[in-house]
């Protein structure tokens, strides 16, 4: 009130206003203006509930102290065996072709016996995985699994990526991976049980289920085997290893091969990057300790792809959540970190993710909004509903909020909102379909 008095006094000492009815009315108008100005003072100050303009949320975690990591992976690669060359290579290659393709059964048996006794057998079999003839690739994969050649796991996974059309090599790759305690290819094994290779695939399934203490009995049905494999795959997706079976640590060669994957990820060529991510995201628990190391890597692309791989691995990599959280403060990758925390089930990160809904970057807001669904963070439902219901919320953000809401509340407004986008065609349909598929899968 002193402000108004002071103002009035100044006016009066100016001597321009005489005392009377007219001057009283003018004074009251002036006082009114001042009062409105006074009352509006709070509007000029910052409401902490709406403190959105800061470049990053005040609560953003501090990013980790970055360390160069690429050299470490280059060092790991030194343990990679040198490729076979010279006349010995040709000799062994011929032996492998004879062993796996000859029509003469006696010759075939002798060649196979010689091949399996050769010191370089594993190396030749690994070469066989990319042979032009499908039967060589199939046999090479089978033998690598049979010989428990664990160092071949990254190569078997790599081959699985390209083996898209030939059913038999796909099955034998899956079979070998199962024998080597990698269950990432169980979907391929299940696929084989639907076709001409069903009996052989059933044999692999029975052996695997027996090893895991899930014996399907003496005369299991295909349905029982399929159900057993699906259950086992779900466990793999959570554990990243074969249940019950004691995990075997990676040997130096396998680690070297994974090291190469990391080195490839920072390269210029995109295909090797894609291959590296494919392999690492299917390695299961053995890759997690290596992935953990890239989260504070100075090299941006190592961090970025590391997060992407962890997202693909999902709950298998939940143990690294505490290493991912600091990346919410990474100026380039905080959105990716938010999405990753959602996929790996980092429920402790919910307060941080809620704070990111106020981030000035829409990309980060969307990543945070989309993380609550996979995270089953029911506490975020009010915020998500508020985002969805506000017409002024950007559509990208509404879509991501609807996605999470649909996962959290199947009968809530999220699913109808996404469905309406498909019906009205006002948002990119493949993206909406992809989100809806995930929602339905989660139900």
């Amino acid at each position, binding site marked *: 009130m002193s402000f108004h008095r002071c103002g009035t006094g100044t006016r009066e000492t100016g001597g321009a206003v005489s005392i009377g009815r007219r001057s009283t009315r003018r004074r009251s108008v002036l006082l009114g203006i001042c009062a409105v100005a006074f*009352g509006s003072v709070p509007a000029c100050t910052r409401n902490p509930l709406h403190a959105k303009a800061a470049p990053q949320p005040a609560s953003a975690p501090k990013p980790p102290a970055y360390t160069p990591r690429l050299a470490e992976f280059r060092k790991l690669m030194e343990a990679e065996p040198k490729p076979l060359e010279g006349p010995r290579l040709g000799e062994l290659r011929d032996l492998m072709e004879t062993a796996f393709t000859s029509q003469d059964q006696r010759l075939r048996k002798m060649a196979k016996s010689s091949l399996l006794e050769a010191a370089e057998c594993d190396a030749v079999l690994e070469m066989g995985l990319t042979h032009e003839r499908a039967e060589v690739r199939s046999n090479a994969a089978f033998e690598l699994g049979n010989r428990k050649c664990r160092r071949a796991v990254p190569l078997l996974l790599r081959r699985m990526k390209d083996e898209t059309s030939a059913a038999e090599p796909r099955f034998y790759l899956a079979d070998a991976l199962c024998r080597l305690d990698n269950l990432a290819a169980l979907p391929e094994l299940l696929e084989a049980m639907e076709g001409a290779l069903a009996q052989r695939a059933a044999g692999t399934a029975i052996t695997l289920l027996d090893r895991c203490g899930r014996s399907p009995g003496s005369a299991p049905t295909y349905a029982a085997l399929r159900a057993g494999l699906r259950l086992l795959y779900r466990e793999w997706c959570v554990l990243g290893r074969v249940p019950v079976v004691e995990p075997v640590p990676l040997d130096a060669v396998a680690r070297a091969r994974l090291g190469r994957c990391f080195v490839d990820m920072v390269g210029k060529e995109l295909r090797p990057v894609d291959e590296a991510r494919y392999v690492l995201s299917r390695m299961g628990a053995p890759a997690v300790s290596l992935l953990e190391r890239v989260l504070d890597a100075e090299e941006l692309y190592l961090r970025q792809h590391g997060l992407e791989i962890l997202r693909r691995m999902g709950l298998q990599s939940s143990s690294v959540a505490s290493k991912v959280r600091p990346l919410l403060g990474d100026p380039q990758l905080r959105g990716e970190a938010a*999405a990753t925390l959602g996929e790996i089930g980092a429920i402790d990160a919910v307060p941080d993710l809620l704070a990111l809904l106020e981030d000035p970057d829409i990309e980060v807001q969307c990543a945070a909004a989309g993380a609550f669904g996979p995270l089953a963070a029911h506490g975020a439902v009010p915020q998500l509903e508020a985002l969805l219901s506000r017409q002024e919320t950007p559509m990208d953000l509404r879509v991501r909020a609807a996605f999470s809401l649909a996962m959290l509340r199947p009968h809530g407004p999220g699913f109808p909102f996404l469905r309406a986008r498909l019906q009205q065609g006002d948002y990119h349909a493949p993206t909406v379909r992809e989100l809806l598929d995930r929602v339905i899968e989660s139900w």
Partner: protein
Amino acid sequence: MNGAVRGVGLAVIAGVFVGGWLWVRGEPETNGTGAAHAATAGVKVKMWQSSQQCKSCHQKVWDEWYGSHHQIAYTNPEVRRLSEDFRIKDCQACHLPRQVALTGFGKRSLPRQTRPNEGVDCITCHLAADGTIMGKRDMPKAPCAPKANADFASVNMCASCHNQHQTTDQWRASKYAKEGKTCHDCHMGKFGHGFNAAHDTAMLRAAGELTVEFAAGELKMTLFNKGAGHNFPTEERHRALDIEYGFPDAKGEVATWQRAYRFRQPYRDEPGENTQLPAMAKKSVSAKVPEGAERAKVRLWYRLNPFAKNGDKASTLLEEKEISLR
């Protein structure tokens, strides 16, 4: 209580009410980027979030860009098929990129999740890492207040995506790099923000010059990369350029077209070498002329994928020449 005091009292109450309402409503604050003044459908926003925000002031530029291959980079059915519906996630980093400046000019961009219908948009190139808008000049009075950036509109800016297939490296090795002629001189000069290129027949025709000669009983066909500042074809390994020839019958019809040469970089797991034609380079191939042939026809085809056949939508006839063999 006289009227003046009553008026003041009511005004104070009204002022407190209005002020309180504004405070609770939380008027967005400017972040110093000018973005607080930009509007999408009448709603104030805090940061540059969509190219829609640029449209109201830059309608002409928007019209050039909208429908371009930059705009449809993520929705183009051809791209979606080749990228397995973007299950090959690496394609997304360039087909739906975050702003180039976030990682730095010349470095691979990061993928985004938002604005799928906007592909490579205004924000991709114009948004600086600090959230301000970049341009060629400082324009502090403009609503978006662009700040000049020396690297903006440089070849390095395009390299973040276009060197994935070595196109900018090819340019660096060409005479155009020495002359200081950049991507923008050809791809923006005439077309503005449409960035016309391999989907523009006139542009393709300006790149290559086909000549046909008959000498010493042979048909000699030469392609000269006279107009492209990089290999022809360039970019993805799907692209192919074919020289075909045939000998017309009396009615002028060619029964069988034969491929004389294919300019293309093979897929990684495909045998063969890169036969793309570098800038200002020439490649000649010869074909035997059958006895009795009186005329020869030669065609130059551009293919968006190597499996496309003549007459397919993915094949464009760039040139056809006919020569007498007498």
